[in-house]
Each structure stands twice: as structure tokens, then as C-alpha cells.
């Protein structure tokens, strides 16, 4: 069970003078029970790739298969059913809140799938709770009158309440405070562990990707530049900088120490691991 992209290419504005090749030669598989991270500079095709993965867009070349089914050839109810499997949180989801209350906004998706009664209520409460949204305080508020970060949480809750098998997140931590970011990243890992969900996420914050994902894909100019574990990707720090990405501050520091300590491991994550390594280097213990 997976989302598979085979020799996929995508062009915007086909046949027009401003035709743009947003993706080419993409071969990629995102499994259940896996957290896949996608990084790349602005315009590298990340959003386009995510939209192909849930079938809101179809490839210009190649095929996308969701659990072996091709959304481009399915019709009607079948396509709806397939899309339910794959929940997508858009890059600026706040723009899509429209109901009169937070409760109704989150309930909208599952209700459309035929979920009703106590199951529906349960899902709305669960989604609000896991995103740290106080139910009593907020469920009857108008979404338009929430703070930026609250809106973003409601938008994510609306997709979670669908209980999708795959969850696709485009810059989900933008606008969240540091605590909210930690809560969300922890939740993503928990969804994978407890429900076996497959997660694909895009983020400009490399710390978030490296600390959360099992596997990372680097996109540049519409092509896959590299795939690997976070540590493998961080071994190519210079390459990431060259294509316009910013290393997490800790890794930037470790790279700066490299001229004095040539054997220093620059792929470590977080202040504790880094401090241990620097300590070892300063004592000359290798």
C-alpha cells in the first residue's frame, strides 16, 4: 500500500508561451507507516508534487498510483473514495475556512463522507484536542475571527477529522508558535505509530523535517536531487546551501567548526547531540 509516482512530469499552462515544466522524471514511493519529508527552494515543485499525490492534479507525463489505483482514470464515486484516503492540508489553509463555527468547519468533511451522530462529534472533539484547541472556548467561535495560528490549527483539524490513510501537509508549521510546532510534529509521529498513517510533509524549516521524517527527498528545479535519511541528507550540507536552502543553526555551527575539527560529525540533530560531539572534539576523544 503506497502512493507511487512513476516517471512523472508536470507542466503548467501547456501549449501556452509561459508553459512551465514544474516537475520532471519523478520516481517516488510514499508508504504507509512512513513519514516522508520534501525539501527544496521556492519554486522547486514541492506544492505541485503534493497536489499530484492526492489526485487534485494529474501528471502531464507518467502515472500516479494511490494504492495501485490511478486517480486520472477513475470517475465519480470511485475518485471521491480514493481522495478520502489522502488528506491534504494546503499551503495557506486559513483561506479555506468558511463555516459559521469552528465546530461546523471541522465537521464538514467527515459529514460529507456520511459520518454522523456521536461518531462525528467524537471526531471533531478528538481533532481539536490533539491540536491543542480548547473545545469549550473555541468550538462555537467564528473561524474568521480567530488568530492566525488558531485558524491554521482548525484547518489541520478539519483534515485530521477525515481520518485519512495518508496525510499530506504543505508547510504545516508556518504561523504556529514554537510550542504548537512541537505539538504538531509529535502528533505526526504519533499518527504514524498508532494508526500506521503515511505522512508526506513539506517544510522550509529543515529542523522540522530532519527531526520528524524517516526519509527526505530534495527537489531542485522540478527534479529529485537526492533521497535519503535525514543524516544522509545532512552529510551534503554544502549542496543544500548551494541550491538555496538554509541549514538548521546547529548544523551551520558544526560545519563552521569543521576547519578546526575535520572529523566532526556535522549531521547531528539538536543541541544535546551537538554539545556531546563538541565536547568529544575539545577533549580530543575520537
Amino acid at each position, binding site marked *: 500500500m503506497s502512493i507511487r509516482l512513476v516517471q512523472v512530469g508536470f507542466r503548467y499552462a501547456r501549449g501556452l508561451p509561459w508553459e512551465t515544466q514544474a516537475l520532471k522524471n519523478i520516481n517516488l514511493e510514499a508508504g504507509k507507516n512512513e513519514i516522508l519529508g520534501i525539501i527544496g527552494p*521556492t519554486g522547486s515543485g514541492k506544492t505541485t508534487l503534493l497536489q499530484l499525490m492526492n489526485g487534485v492534479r494529474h501528471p502531464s507525463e507518467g502515472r500516479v498510483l494511490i494504492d495501485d489505483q490511478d486517480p486520472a482514470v477513475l470517475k465519480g464515486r470511485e475518485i471521491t473514495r480514493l481522495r478520502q484516503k489522502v488528506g491534504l492540508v494546503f499551503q495557506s489553509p486559513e483561506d479555506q475556512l468558511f463555516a459559521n463555527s469552528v465546530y461546523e468547519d471541522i465537521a464538514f468533511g467527515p459529514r460529507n463522507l456520511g459520518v454522523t451522530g456521536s461518531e462525528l462529534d467524537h471526531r471533531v472533539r478528538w481533532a481539536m484536542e490533539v491540536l491543542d484547541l480548547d473545545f469549550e472556548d473555541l468550538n462555537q467561535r467564528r473561524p474568521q475571527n480567530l488568530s492566525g495560528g*488558531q485558524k491554521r490549527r482548525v484547518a489541520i483539524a478539519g483534515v485530521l477529522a477525515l481520518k485519512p490513510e495518508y496525510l499530506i501537509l504543505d508547510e504545516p508549521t508556518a504561523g504556529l508558535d*514554537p*510550542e504548537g510546532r512541537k505539538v504538531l510534529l509529535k502528533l505526526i509521529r504519533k499518527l504514524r505509530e498508532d494508526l500506521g498513517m503515511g505522512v508526506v510533509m513539506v517544510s522550509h524549516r529543515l529542523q522540522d523535517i530532519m527531526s520528524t521524517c524517516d526519509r527526505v527527498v530534495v527537489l531542485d528545479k522540478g527534479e529529485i536531487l537526492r533521497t535519503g535519511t535525514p543524516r544522509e541528507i545532512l552529510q551534503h550540507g554544502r549542496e543544500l546551501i548551494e541550491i538555496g536552502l538554509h541549514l538548521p*543553526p546547529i548544523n551551520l555551527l558544526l560545519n563552521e*567548526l569543521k576547519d578546526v575539527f575535520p572529523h566532526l560529525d556535522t549531521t547531528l540533530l539538536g*543541541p544535546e547531540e551537538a*554539545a556531546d560531539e*563538541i565536547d568529544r572534539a575539545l577533549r580530543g576523544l575520537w
Partner: protein
Amino acid sequence: MIEVSGVSFCYPGLESPVLHDINLEIKPGEFLALLGRNGSGKSTFTRLLNGLLVPTDGDVIVDGYNTRDGSHRLRIRQLVGLLFSNPDNQLVAGIVEEDVAFGPENLGLPPAEIRERVEWALSAVGMQDYLKHPPHMLSGGQKQRIAIAGVLALEPSYMVLDEPTSMLDPRGREEVLRTLMDLNREQGTAIIMVTHFVEEAAAADRVVILDHGRVVAMGSPLEVLTRTDDLSDWGLEAPEMVLLCHELRKRGYTRIPMALDSRRVAGAIKQFSCKD
């Protein structure tokens, strides 16, 4: 100077106020970063500074004009420029130059003066070569700089920016931050910036932290951003460099100075290795 004294604010229909008794003076030419968890009241506070919202209690006084007094509304809007996070929602015209001219035209300025201001504002943000460009063909960072130019063309003394970089990639974010720092240094424009990036707050002269509608900390970035335990109580997090300095001190390197910048920390660590 913007004097915020005893300010509380309550949205109609909400029982409890979202800002409580805020007291703060913003000096001309200073660079202030405003941090706080989601829902702590940052955006509400920014809207009080230019009179878009009026306090329920207390006063906001901009260079002597009270925002309560409707007859000063235009004057205050001109003194205090306000900018939001999404550049797409702020660009109105089909080409860059018209977009930047939009504000000054509304002030009824003579065309020659408008031209001058547009050119000046665009060069202040490093976008003078894009006069005839359609804004939607620009990158996010470039669009946000155009939006900043649009506010600058009104020649405000204070620029208030609500998460101006949250929609941008790291490169665009750096571009915008550098633009703001240059404006602050070279034109003396005061900058009041809301952000969730602690690393950006490190560039400010002063950091103010809101929690549940109250000011809970105020001081230089080094003073405030090194209070690691307090920061997590407020839903925030110290910069990674500060956390690393703490970890190194715990491991016996007590003379490692607290610093916010990776180059400074790297320098200090290298000195240690020389001594040994």
C-alpha cells in the same frame, strides 16, 4: 514616540479581554520584535497602534495624537504603516509602480511628488529595476518587498509588520529582514515586527513578549532570549544557539559566552581548543 498606556482590549461578543493593561513606549527609530504564543494578542496589538482598533480602556498616543480622536485618523495612518503576512493580499495593481503609487495617490499628493516617492521607496527596498513588472510574476520575498515599498511611500515614521516573513522561504525571509534592518538604520524608520522566528527577533534592539494578553518580558534580545525556562512557559523556545551554549556549560565549559549567532559561538569554541 508611540505611548501605549493602560491599554486593554475586548472584542465585541467575547467575554474576557484579549489585552490587559499594556504599558509600553515605542521610541522613534527603534527596532522592536514582538513575540508570543498563538492567540496571545500580537495581531490585536498591532492593529491598535495605527488606530485600526481603538482600546477598550487606556490610550494609544502617536506623536501626540490619540487614536481615540477620529479627527486624527488620517494623520495617524500616515505616521504608522501597517503590513500583514501575506503579500498576495496586499498587492492591488497590475504593475509594480502603480501598486506603490496607490497609497500616495490616495493622500492626494501632486504627481511629481508621487513619482519621486515611488522611485525612492522602490530603491529603499532594492527593487528599483522592477518598476514595470507585474507583481504576480515575482517571488514571495520580492512581492513582500514591493508591499513594504507601498507602505514606505507614505513615509511613515513607524512601520508595523505582522509576521511579514511567515509566508516566505528562508531566502525571501532573509531578504525582507535585511531590507527592514537597512530601513531602520539608514532612514531611521522605527520597526515593530511580530514574528514566530526567534532568530529574527535576535536582530531587534528590543524584544517584547506577550502571553495571554499581558506583557511578560521586555529587554534586549540577549537578555530575553536566554531565559530558556520562562520562554517554554510562554509557549516559545530559545534560539538553538542559546540551547547549545547551555548544554556546553552543563558539560563543564562554563566560560562559553551566551550568544545568539552561530559564528560567535563557533569563535568561542575554537578559542577553547587553542587554549588546550
